[in-house]
């Protein structure tokens, strides 16, 4: 695809490996870059808000985006307690951007997945969640055809007006390998970001997340085919219905509790 006039920015964060908890390139952000490179090649801009850490492993993690063949990453310097949403929004307001790509949620920190929504709100752009691909861009009508990833491998084709923000799902194309040489030689173009202290989070208490208790699933299947079906079949929505009214809602909950043998 040659979209020479298109301006695409991908936002990258520091990822965290799930088992070793070491910094790495975030899997979704890397997919966003892969998608960006597919759209505009070398014209892709990449933005990171944060500090260039003295810690070698953090630098290496950020540099591994450069290793995908980017010449530079724009680094918006901000202190650790700043609100990245405001800093990035402040910067993007001054740019003319057609497409902003992010991951669905960060691999560490608040990891709320709110950043693309809040940015869209601040910039007044459309927001498409969990995309797998951008199929085509009609620069005349300022419209893009986007493939959205839904659970169980389903896809939905959407038409979105430019400019828009999209969060890139794990279902997007695998990111290319990061090569050490370009990673070391790529540049950070540092600019001082606006100062927006995140006042809300300053008095939050942070505790490790606990896994939600999972309902025991008793599989009665006798054959391999049944087990396969149980594992892959779409949950049938037969039992679900929308209930209005307080009385009916309460009754529905009570019925379920009785049915599950909890009361």
């Amino acid at each position: 695809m040659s979209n020479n006039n298109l301006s695409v920015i991908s936002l990258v964060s520091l990822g965290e490996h799930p088992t070793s908890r070491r910094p790495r390139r975030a899997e979704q952000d890397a997919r966003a870059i892969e998608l960006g490179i597919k759209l505009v090649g070398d014209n892709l801009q990449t933005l990171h808000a944060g500090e260039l850490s003295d810690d070698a492993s953090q630098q290496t993690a950020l540099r591994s985006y450069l290793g995908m063949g980017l010449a530079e990453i724009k680094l918006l310097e901000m202190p650790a307690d700043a609100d990245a949403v405001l800093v990035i929004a402040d910067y993007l307001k001054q740019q003319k951007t057609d497409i902003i790509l992010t991951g669905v949620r960060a691999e560490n920190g608040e990891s709320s997945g709110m950043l693309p929504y809040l940015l869209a709100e601040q910039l007044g752009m459309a927001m498409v969640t969990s995309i797998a691909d951008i199929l085509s861009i009609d620069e005349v009508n300022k419209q893009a055809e986007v493939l959205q990833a839904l659970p169980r491998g389903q896809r939905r084709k959407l038409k979105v007006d430019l400019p828009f923000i999209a969060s890139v799902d794990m279902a997007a194309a695998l990111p290319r390998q990061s090569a050490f040489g370009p990673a070391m030689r790529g540049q950070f173009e540092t600019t001082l970001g606006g100062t927006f202290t995140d006042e809300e989070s300053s008095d939050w208490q942070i505790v490790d997340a606990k896994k939600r208790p999972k309902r025991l699933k008793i599989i009665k299947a006798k054959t391999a085919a049944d087990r396969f079906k149980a594992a892959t079949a779409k949950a049938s929505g037969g039992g679900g219905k929308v209930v209005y009214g307080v009385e009916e809602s309460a009754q529905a909950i009570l019925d379920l509790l009785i049915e599950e043998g909890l009361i």
Partner: protein
Amino acid sequence: MSSSEFLSHFLFTLISFALLLTLVGAVKRMLLWSQGQSSTIHWLGLLQIPRRYLVDLHHVVARDKYMSNTHVATAGGFVLSSILIILLYVFQLTLQILTWALLGSSLLMFIGSIFVMLRRRNPPPNLSLGKWQRLPKSLMVFSLSFFILTLPATGILPSDTGGWLLALLLVAGIIWGIGEMFCGMTWGGPMKHAFAGALHLGLHRRQERFGGQSTGLKAIDLSSKKLGVEKPIDFKWNQLLSFDACVECGRCENNCPAFAAGQPLNPKKLIQDMVIGMAGGDDAKFAGSPYPGIKVGTHKGGAIIPIVNVLVESETLWSCTTCRACVDACPMMIEHVDAIVDMRRFETMEKGQTPGKGSEILENLSATDNPNGFAPSTRMNWAADQNLTVFGHNEKKQQVTQADVLLWVGDAAFDMRNQRTLRAMIKLLRAAKVDFAVLGDAECDSGDLARRLGDEATFQRLANSNISTMNKYSFNTIVTADPHAFHCIKNEYGEFGGNYNVMHHTGFFAELVSQQKIKLDNSKELALTYHDPCYLGRYNGEYDAPRFLLESMGVKIKEMERSKSTARCCGGGGGAPVTDIPGKQRIPDMRMADVIETKAEIVAVACPGCSAMLEGVVEPRPEVKDIAELMLDALIEDTGEDMVGAQV
């Protein structure tokens, strides 16, 4: 003027001119080599050429007795004849003894050339045809011409025998002969191997190879502008020289497991392609076996043209298991594996194009220090019931900083099959009352896989991390069951300041058995063969210790035809299972066929990689057992008497 007077005048001019032409060719060839990157010039090595030729090179040639005798006669006769020809016809020394000597040496060379001719009547597929089929004729013409030319001078025949007719025939023969044998040496004929080969022997990049061993890969500077080899000129100049030494004998091809498996690699063709790259041109004239599945004549290259996917397909590079069988078989001492890894480094570190699962494995190595991405904190889970002493802190908050032996666990820690080997090792070490400790979660992958996948950066990080961990503790010996870790720590950590006494478990246990610290039952009769791991055998020359251990258990090893230095790889080295380049058959299947041929019921291995590859062969097949496991089966544990003694 008689025909003999004419001949002697003419020969002076002709030979002088030919020598001059040869010299011009030599300079041109040297200019080609000098396009390469700088590398230490070992001038003193030049003095060693005769010794290296007669000892090291001949040692390899002599694996084929027919060819070594043939080569001694032909090459010996040729070198001697050349010297005498120059003395007689250029310096015009008219000593009768020289004439007689020339008669003898040319006869010797002629006899040799007959055997060369015979070998080439029905040449085996590993030999190149084309210009190489011309060589025996040239050898014959050269030797016969000078033999006949010399006859009258010795007085056996009257001078002017044959008159002008013979003189003209001789002139023609000599022009052909010295054209091929002198000028061809430096202008790219088959005799190029003599000129480049001699210099290569002297100026070899691995001087320690001669009379010793040098198998560790060489480190590169990670801050340099280009990492690895992209174009022929990115090789060191002495590597370019080494490519020119190739004599296209195809012994590498005969020994290459990837070639045999039908993967697109032929070490001989690869080296010839490097020559094409250095000198410029295409591969249409290559007259040997192609890379399996890739047609000859479809690729071209040049000194400043990228190699991969222009001259050589990337699959060719990634088919190599780095088993070193080609290097070991090469009479010209060419280092194929170095060249392949150099090119892989560019593919991985500059282009980011490691095929197959390479990218994932390398990412895991940098995020978790093990290739499969397991949490580093679970490295010791396998030994939860083993009560091992761990260096550093332990559960009782005691500091352990020294032990006699550091047991290097390796990535077998995460592999249920090879955990069995580790458990067996621990029981044996305890039976021998060895004082040992492990590094626990602080141990990282040795870096072997990353380095051979071309990721020198990850290798260096892992090596430095392991070295700084080990340097905190004091121990006498590192013992490991993994020959890859063994090789890396022993031969490749030195460049980063890690110098240790490292032993493979077979070597260490062999010592314990010979000191009677481990007693083995030798009454069982096992139909068993032993598979030499490449990184223990060819890389480190350890063939005896495993065999000693097996024999101590009373086993009469049913040796495979390809064993010791010619052992066939299991297919697990060099990241080959990761890149997984398709071929016609699988390398471990071929190796298992070798095992089955011996009618053995058990194949003893000494490497976690080999056990994984060979156990991956579908059953029914012989059982795969590590030597440590076999030893544990045969272990005679101390009986109660000693225990009582200890208690009192």
